[in-house]
């Protein structure tokens, strides 16, 4: 009975941490732009990662569990750094709105005609000139790759963090 209670408390701790992290990130406006409700999808995947971490590490030896925690923490840090790097390079807020758009890295034929050598690193003014329609300026493929990379980086950050946290909670001895 006591063991059951401890398990429930541990799971609740994990779920609470995950939800808190997701909410915090959303409030800070850090979540990836463009995909609708992506923060909830990533939160679900992170929950899956936490459950896996729980399953794999709760009965494993301390050394193995610690190694797992270090790997997850590293993945989380790498994911966060990659996400922030891409965010700085490619995400652009639209002035006066809450909307953010994602740039691409290859100009369309039309953008090449107008901006020539400035491609693909176009100034913000070029976006305003094109009504903030990124796909007029950059090819869909290049915009999609960046959007997807942002989500992958965000996922590694969230899932790694939650899995590391899950492993720590799973290893707690009552």
């Amino acid at each position, binding site marked *: 009975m006591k063991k059951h209670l401890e398990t429930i408390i541990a799971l609740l701790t994990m779920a609470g941490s995950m939800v808190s992290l997701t909410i915090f990130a959303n409030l800070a406006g850090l979540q990836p732009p463009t995909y*609708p409700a992506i923060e909830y999808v990533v939160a679900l995947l992170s929950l899956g990662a936490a459950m896996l971490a729980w399953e794999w590490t709760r009965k494993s030896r301390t050394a193995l569990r610690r190694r797992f925690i270090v790997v997850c923490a590293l993945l989380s840090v790498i994911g966060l750094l990659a996400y922030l790097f891409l965010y700085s390079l490619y995400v652009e807020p639209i002035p006066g709105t809450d909307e953010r758009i994602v740039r691409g890295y290859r100009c369309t034929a039309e953008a090449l005609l107008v901006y020539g050598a400035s491609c693909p690193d176009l100034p913000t003014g070029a976006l*305003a000139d094109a*009504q903030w329609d990124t796909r007029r300026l950059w090819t869909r493929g290049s915009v999609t790759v960046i959007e997807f990379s942002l989500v992958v980086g965000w996922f590694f950050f969230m899932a790694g963090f939650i899995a590391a946290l899950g492993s720590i909670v799973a290893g707690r001895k009552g």
Partner: protein
Amino acid sequence: MRCAVPFLLSALLAGCNESSDAGIAPDQYAGTVQSRDAPAEPNAKVAAFASEASASPATDYGLMKDVARDLLARNPDGEFSDPSVEDQFRFFRSYMDEEVADLEDCGSLSSLGMKPARSEEIDRRASGEELAADQLEEIATYRIGTEAFLRRAGYRKEVYQAPLRAYEREALEIVFEGEELGYELKERLAQRMERRRSSLQPDMPAIGYHGGCGAGETAFTFAFDPPNGTAWLIRVFDFELCRRRFPEPWNVDGACRDWREASDDTRMMLSGNYVYQASWPNGTTRRGTKTALGDPMAEINVMTFRARR
């Protein structure tokens, strides 16, 4: 036949904020002509799509994407070779994301199957006859694409067929009278369809015409000082393209077809920078650029054109 430019920008709703204004020298936009690619074939693929799409209702739009890819692949180096055009199918995005069938196609349906003109044809393109031909193709492609989409989405033909026929008839009348197609026709089309849908298929997503094809847009109306003016607006990016492609980028009835007319009773969804030319009944004209900085929370944003600073 070919058609060169995305069809409607335009749109609706109301708003009240001031836009920023910057005058420019007209000669800043002296045009140069660039060479363009071969003319288009007829839209057989789109017609084929329409007949194929008569199967069971579905909310996926893979087939339409395939058609778009196929049409665009015919012209790999052309103006419309960018496969991103399929992403502009606002029909599908609005239907899937917001559960509204928005009849604004942002030019994606109207531009299916077209190819840019050869450089030696640019003069012909600027003639009224050529523009009429472009618009006929726009009407045909838009009608077929819209019908196919609504059918696939599960709307009954009683909802869309008669309004589309009326749209086609009215649009053809406008073209044969030598006028340009405006967004009002599509607004009316959506209203007619929505009336039928609400009684025949109340459980299906609403049909509307919401307009707006970029990001961060807010609704604008227009004011003139002195009153009774008329303005023409175009995105700066589109204007720069026209300037490089056509000899008369300022000619709103010419080959540069992205100009949109704005008067006292016009509403548009705008964001970013625009080139404008405004005129008043007393003969005053003004050209310049404006930035649409609307307040998304405001019900009314107003862009004001003044004859004098």
